[in-house]
């Protein structure tokens, strides 16, 4: 199979075999869910319910505020017991709606959906409205409200929709299982997205380590010349948006620009499946598939969980933590943040929970840069991470800017390869945050 790829990058061990062959299991509705009002990029939603109110799964409980924001739905049926600040995966305390389970089954479909209506009869405008009504956001991690991508700036045309099925983060297998078990939903979602955007072609990029998925998708899509399944080389960060676009189309998104500048919209395969569910059954975004994995968990699994399910309930369902569990990571090991508490909820952008053991946590102490150049050799954006790290560490933000710190997408590859164990990505993130804050201040 001829596989496409981008330049540079790294080859961390995949560690996917723990869960790659385990079918997705549906987690029974927990006794309580916690739904933060902000699970997406943009303005938090406004609550529509009050404490004490009974809600059913799928019911809209918070309204999106403006264009870049996402509507929120109850993920289980129950009673609203609190609207209060709760620990959030970002590390902050943010307002959330707490629902206690009362044992109700099923869900109420999103208004405006007519399940069973063929795609040919639904217009692109309707789909965009449904994306908003269904609370759809990007499920690869960034959680940008999905509809936003389908309002291109004046004069820009979307030619291609690319579904990101690379799943390049080690350990994670949720997209793998989803594509394997629900290929029709993924393809249906892609067709709907193409229709919404008026795109002439749809691609699904899948890394070669998921040969079974490539085969299944190619079979299912064989009759459709507008859809192409693209095998990708196993390399990190293959699923980084701009690397994926380059690998598949050869187009380079200009610095400071957006994928739409080169006529492309990228969505995660999970988002496509969620869109298919919404259009076919009226189910808004109230659950998602996550991978629970790592040396530190007793029973690794792929789970479909209601949004707002707390980590502690998921961990308990997976046989609990091992005695030597030492680090809890939300998402993959390359970019996911580490957390110290298990009362965090799964939100729309949570791809997985990785539990490492204490033995796996390496030396934290770092040395001076020896200028070995490994970070320069692998940086997919051809930056000089060693200098970005040095300038950021010393708070020399002007120089960091000149060396392109704002162009870094924080994939973590430089810190991964650094033999002196320098926390380059962390310094770079800090510098970016400070520069953005300063710009906001000066307006």
């Amino acid at each position, binding site marked *: 199979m001829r596989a496409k790829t981008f330049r540079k990058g790294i080859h961390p061990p995949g560690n996917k075999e723990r869960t790659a062959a385990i079918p997705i299991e549906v987690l029974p509705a927990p006794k309580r869910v916690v739904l933060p009002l902000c699970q997406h990029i943009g303005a938090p939603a406004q609550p529509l319910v009050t404490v004490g109110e009974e809600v059913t799964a799928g019911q809209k409980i918070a309204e999106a505020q403006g264009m870049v924001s996402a509507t929120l739905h109850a993920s289980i049926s129950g009673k609203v017991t609190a609207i209060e600040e709760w620990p959030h995966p970002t590390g902050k305390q943010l307002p959330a709606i707490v629902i206690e389970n009362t044992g109700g089954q099923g869900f109420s479909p999103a208004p405006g959906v007519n399940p069973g209506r063929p795609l040919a009869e639904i217009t692109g405008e309707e789909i965009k409205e449904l994306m908003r009504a269904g609370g759809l956001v990007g499920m690869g991690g960034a959680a940008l409200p999905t509809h936003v991508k389908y309002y291109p700036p004046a004069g820009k045309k979307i030619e291609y929709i690319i579904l990101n099925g690379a799943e390049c983060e080690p350990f994670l297998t949720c997209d793998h299982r989803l594509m394997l078990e629900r290929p029709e939903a993924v393809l249906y979602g892609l067709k709907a997205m193409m229709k919404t955007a008026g795109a002439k072609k749809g691609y699904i990029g899948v890394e070669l380590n998921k040969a079974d998925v490539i085969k299944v998708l190619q079979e299912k899509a064989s009759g459709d010349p507008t859809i192409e399944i693209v095998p990708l080389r196993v390399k990190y960060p293959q699923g980084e948006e701009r690397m994926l676009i380059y690998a598949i189309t050869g187009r*380079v998104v200009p610095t400071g620009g957006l994928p739409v500048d080169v006529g492309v919209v990228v969505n995660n395969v999970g988002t496509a499946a969620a869109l298919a569910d919404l259009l076919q059954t009226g189910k808004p975004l109230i659950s998602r598939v996550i991978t629970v994995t790592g040396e530190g968990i007793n029973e690794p699994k792929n789970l479909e969980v209601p949004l707002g399910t707390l980590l502690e309930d998921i961990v308990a369902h997976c046989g609990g933590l091992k005695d030597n569990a030492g680090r809890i990571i939300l998402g993959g090991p390359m970019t996911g943040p580490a957390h110290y508490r298990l009362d965090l909820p799964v939100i729309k952008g949570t791809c997985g929970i990785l539990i490492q053991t204490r033995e796996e946590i390496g030396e934290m102490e770092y040395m001076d840069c020896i200028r070995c*150049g490994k970070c320069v050799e692998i940086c997919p954006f051809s930056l000089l991470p060693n200098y970005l790290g040095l300038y950021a560490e010393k708070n020399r933000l002007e120089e960091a800017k000149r060396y392109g710190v704002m162009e870094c997408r924080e994939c973590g590859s430089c810190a991964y390869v650094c033999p002196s164990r320098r926390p380059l990505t962390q310094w770079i993130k800090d510098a970016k945050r400070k520069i953005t804050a300063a710009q906001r201040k000066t307006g």
Partner: protein
Amino acid sequence: METTQLTVSPAPHIRARQSTAGIMWMVVTALLPAAAAGVVLFGRPALIVIISSILAAVLAEALCQWVMGRRITVGDGSAAVTGLLLALTLPPELPWWMTISGAAFAIIIGKQVFGGLGHNLFNPALAGRAFLLASWPTAMMTWKWPAGSLSWAGGSADAVAGATVLELARRGFFAQHGVQVPYSQLFMGNIAGSIGETSALALLLGAVFLLAFQVIDWRIPLGYLGALAVLAVLAGQNPVFHLLSGGVLIGAFFMATDYVTTPITPGGRFFFGLGCGVLTFLIRIYGGYPEGVTYAILLMNAAAPLLEKATIPKRFGEVRANV
């Protein structure tokens, strides 16, 4: 839930296996064949030079860091690399106290005054060698042929006994006497020269090891050896002779590839190697010394920041205004 000791730290949470100390010890490993060849060829004096140089370098590093109240980091292996590299560039019978002075200079002036590992401008081992060359030129150019290695010279054996093949070529010895350059000896290392520079075979073994594990960047030796060979051909000289004689191989694979003192950009590294090759050739042909590797690399060290600035790669997505 019972309490578990949890660590919170920034992503990425997995790291490549190769560490800085690991790299240094790999360089030491790669130099072992050359060091062993030196001891076999030149005997016990060579072993004494090697051991005293390494010990002096490591002790000087520890002492400096202790005096400055810094963390003592001799375990990272970088001082041992400097000591070993320096020893391999010294004549086999150099007095031990000269060796120690050179190693101390390399670490203290060549490295620690700049701030230690990662901060020095010049290759510390070569700085130490340049210091010795300036301080005790005679001792530093006293050469010895390994026992029984002069049979190729026939009746002229006495005339060549104290000289390296480079010096002999410079004097026009081979042409005058109609004697063939002993190429197989040049390759095996059975000739006069510094402890670790004579055996091309041993050095190439180490070089292959470092290249295979991507410890060193191939662009530097390619530029270095390529430039030297091309210039030799253009000047009507034998490129193989230039590559195998003197310190070119140890320089190209082990000195010019030092991370700290070379450009970090891929393009910069190639041009750095190229510059080393050109300077080595110019010094050999026009300079006051028969060999030019030390000064070629030191001069290019000085040019490294400039080369780096000139070769910053184009960023992904960068739209240059005047393209």
